[in-house]
């Protein structure tokens, strides 16, 4: 994978504290797969480790990310201007499965900034529905695009406070949708831990396969620090599980294999 400085062609605050950054690099763009991530270097010693961010979209030789400013690293990123460059490592991780049969409906379930990988997935696949949960309208990313998808019956939005879409949890929307018909479906999910855990429960209840993308704190992103592990079921191990690396073995794991505790 690549490690290089790339020129920024766009870096805008689309919603309060939420940015869309696009950089140009043909080599990286050509290697990306849906559900993979990139490691960004922002600043010097005050942000020594890199910042993992999902690939949100690939358009020709341009790669976009959606990021929420939560700390010093993402703050540095938000202050970069068009024409400046940023050092990128990647693309990294396994990504979502690519070989979903066309007649199978993929249910994208996104929570908050976990929406990150889904625009790319929406471009790549055709037979899908999007379930998107956010705290409130101010956190709803790509709002115009989402509104059009809602009109077309392809997207369903839930907010905690009812400021947009249905009030409540997006997992309840998913549950209700699967209760009507759960045949020939598969779930791709990314979001906060409690939401992903609930998605796994809903998936199990309806007998639907799920693929969960984890966003854990990372040291290196390339499998050399072993600081990013999750307990993943493995019958061959003495305790029935193994610590797998989220960055290298993941970030996407089968829902049924994840041990939540």
């Amino acid at each position, binding site marked *: 994978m690549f490690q290089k400085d790339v020129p920024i062609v766009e870096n805008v605050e689309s919603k309060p504290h939420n940015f869309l950054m696009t950089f140009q690099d043909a080599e990286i763009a050509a290697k990306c797969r849906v559900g993979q991530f990139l490691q960004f270097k922002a600043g010097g010693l005050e942000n020594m480790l890199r910042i993992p961010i999902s690939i949100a979209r690939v358009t020709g030789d341009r790669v976009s990310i959606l990021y929420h400013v939560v700390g010093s690293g993402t703050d540095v990123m938000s202050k970069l201007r068009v024409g400046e460059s940023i050092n990128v490592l990647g693309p990294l991780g396994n990504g979502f499965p690519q070989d979903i049969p066309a007649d199978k409906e993929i249910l994208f379930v996104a929570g908050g900034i976990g929406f990150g990988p889904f625009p790319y997935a929406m471009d790549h696949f055709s037979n899908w529905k999007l379930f998107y949960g956010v705290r409130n309208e101010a956190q709803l990313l790509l709002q115009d695009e989402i509104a059009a998808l809602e009109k077309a019956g392809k997207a369903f939005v839930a907010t905690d406070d009812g400021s947009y879409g249905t009030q409540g949890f997006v997992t309840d929307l998913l549950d209700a949708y699967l209760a009507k018909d759960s045949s020939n479906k598969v779930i791709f999910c990314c979001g906060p831990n409690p939401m992903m855990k609930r998605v796994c429960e809903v998936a199990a209840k309806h007998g639907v396969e799920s693929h969960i993308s984890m966003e*854990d704190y990372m040291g*290196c992103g390339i499998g*050399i*620090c072993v600081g990013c592990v*999750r307990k993943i079921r493995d019958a061959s191990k003495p305790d029935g599980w193994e610590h797998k690396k989220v960055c290298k073995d993941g970030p996407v794991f089968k829902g049924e294999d994840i041990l939540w505790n």
Partner: protein
Amino acid sequence: MELSNVNKPDLRVKLGDVELANPVMLASGTCGYGDELEDYIDLNRLGGISVKGTTLEERQGNPMPRIIETYGGMINAIGFQNVGIERFVSEKYPYLKNIGARTFVNITANSVEEFGLLAARVDALPEIAGVEVNISCPNIKKGGINMGTDPFAAAEVVAAVRKATSKHVMVKLTPNVTDIKPIAKACEDSGADSISLINTLVGMAVDVKTRKPKIANVIGGLSGPAIKPVAVRLTWEVAKTVKIPVVGMGGISCLEDALEFLIVGASAVQVGTANFFNPKVTMEIIDGLEKYMLDNGVAKISDLVGTLRLD
């Protein structure tokens, strides 16, 4: 230092009987088993690699969170998650035996006997240069005393490893001691071929909102640029104390950092945490060393080692 016309500087380093193509190595626990870095660096250009701390049995390590960034560094408590020596031999060794970098197996154990068993297993692997003995671990049979903080306990481990292998025995010291010199001396006297240092400094970080420690293990090992001055000082002290070669590390992230260690007496260096944010760092340092030697008329890298001027 002799100034001369240098066309092709000689970066080769001798650690006892082991020759490295250059003094730059990857540090244990920060490079996996080498293969993870092959997209970014040429493993044939490296001087050496010390693989992840290997135990007799496979280990799953500590609970999460096990790493946290601190200013200019990070604290880790991975807990030696590794595949164990048998899977190392069957799954990792076949790859490592074909790379140009000389490989050292970093061994970790909780008793003197286990250290001996691990060294004997490594002894049977022809393409491995030697062991790096991580003596800073608790001896479970002896009430958990840290074998790396006591000269007698350290000597016992080194003697057992020495008996078990004819390969190079590098002993890795912990900085978490009041005086490192007697420990280094005890290792030399018990048969060590080289000393590497430093391992991580014990550290701690607290989340002031929740008042909880930031890693599950409460305390962990501090590494990265923040620890470099401590590491340079300890490397200097040990290099003055022992006659065997010293391999310095701790916070190295660029050419200048590596040069500091060589100047205070390290024959080679290891690069750890910097790989996490700059996987290409070792190649940059090797290129930089070559250029530095050309620019400064240094013919052999050994002409630089231990040239600290105190006048």
